[in-house]
């Protein structure tokens, strides 16, 4: 049996693991949800800089919760840190699509063995729209997917091939769930780390995406 985690533990573990993987000084764009927890878990001495797609370079915590003049893409008040700036959306997306962001972390509805990501629509159920995600996944130097491993019904979100409309094809570099870290190494999906107490064979058994188990498989830091 895979170790059970509650929602909070699972989300924080994912955020913490990605926080530890980000390069010091990296310029990072974070999606809504789990990715937003990452700044709370940065290792001591390692700093990342946040870009928001609505135009903040170097976003920081809000100073006044009622002031909506500086917000993140989700509409929450934020601030700009010293050394930061504001840009228009054409420049913001030139930054995102043009390869000027070191990493992005996004949530997923599904992610698959080809490195494809689906996170913008469940046809006939819910269509929030792609927002900026399609541009970000083609432009960021490194694309992290931060996602719970399973759907509520127990199906794995790591698929052989996404059945939902894609956000991007072959764009994902690293998948982190509460049970594992999978790295896309030249198109091979390699299970590099597994959560303490989880059995690789069982995890693979319950995961539709075929993973190549690293000969150097490690216990996931958390």
């Amino acid at each position, binding site marked *: 049996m895979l170790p059970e985690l509650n929602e909070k533990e699972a989300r924080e573990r994912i955020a913490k693991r990605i926080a530890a993987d980000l390069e010091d000084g990296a310029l990072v764009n974070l999606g809504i949800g789990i990715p937003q927890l990452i700044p709370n878990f940065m290792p001591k001495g390692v700093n990342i800089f946040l870009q928001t797609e609505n135009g903040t370079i170097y976003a920081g915590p809000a100073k006044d919760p009622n002031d909506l003049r500086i917000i993140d893409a989700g509409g929450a008040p934020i601030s700009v840190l010293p050394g930061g700036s504001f840009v228009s959306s054409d420049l913001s997306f030139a930054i995102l699509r043009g390869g000027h962001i070191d990493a992005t972390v996004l949530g997923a509805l599904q992610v698959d063995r080809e490195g494809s990501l689906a996170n913008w629509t469940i046809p006939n159920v819910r269509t929030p729209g792609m*927002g900026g995600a399609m541009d970000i996944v083609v432009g960021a130097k490194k694309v992290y997917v931060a996602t719970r491993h399973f759907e509520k019904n127990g199906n794995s979100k790591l698929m052989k091939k996404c059945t939902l409309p894609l956000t991007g094809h072959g764009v994902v570099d690293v998948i982190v769930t509460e049970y594992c870290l999978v790295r896309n190494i030249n198109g091979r999906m390699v299970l590099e780390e597994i959560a303490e107490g989880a059995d690789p064979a069982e995890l693979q058994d319950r995961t539709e995406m075929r993973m190549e188990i690293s000969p150097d498989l490690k216990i996931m830091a958390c």
Partner: protein
Amino acid sequence: MTKPFIKPIITPEEAADKVREGTTIMLGGFNYGGVPYTVIDALHDLGTRDIRVICVDASHCNPKVPQPVGVARLIVNRQVSSMVIAHMGLNAAAQEMFAKGEIDIELNPMGTLVERIRAGGAGLGGFLTPTGVDTAYEKNRQTVELDGKKFILERPLKADIAFIRAYMADEAGNLIYYGTGRNFNPVMATAADIVIAEVDKVVPIGEIDPNDVVTPGIFIDALVLKGGNCYAART
């Protein structure tokens, strides 16, 4: 038609009254920020129907924010016949109308959307982007392969009227923005026949340094002062 050097300050109602049935409008803003709330409210009260809207998102109308905000007011009021947007995740009403086929919504990736508007303003015939390639978004769109890489060919967008939002204007219509309220506004200012900017204040010429201007006054037809709507007050 040349645009006036000194920009008239008009009422929100006068601004809204330029919209007719079938008019295509651009609305600045991204989520809560940089939205011309005062003009949108006037347009809501005027009740003009069959408005075609180009904007970033469908704003808020959801369990957490049940009173529709900004363009969501026009949508819920059935004044909007079509939209080109990138996101409607915070507008449950729009998603429902879309699912029922009650509103014509074209979803674009956000970077594609802003670039289409920029192309419209810049006199370009279109552009090639890697965004959306090999996804469902690519369907029914023209693609071009160059040096073994596939791109989607995107077309420019223009509007009859753009209602934008800036922080401050001078009397010559030069605009500066504040915080994340900049977003799509400077690009939309270039891509419509008539451009009306809602602002916090209008200052005499000379108070904005010519080096600090973000949107030159040459694009602007008229100014509107922001009103007391609770969102206008906070942005």
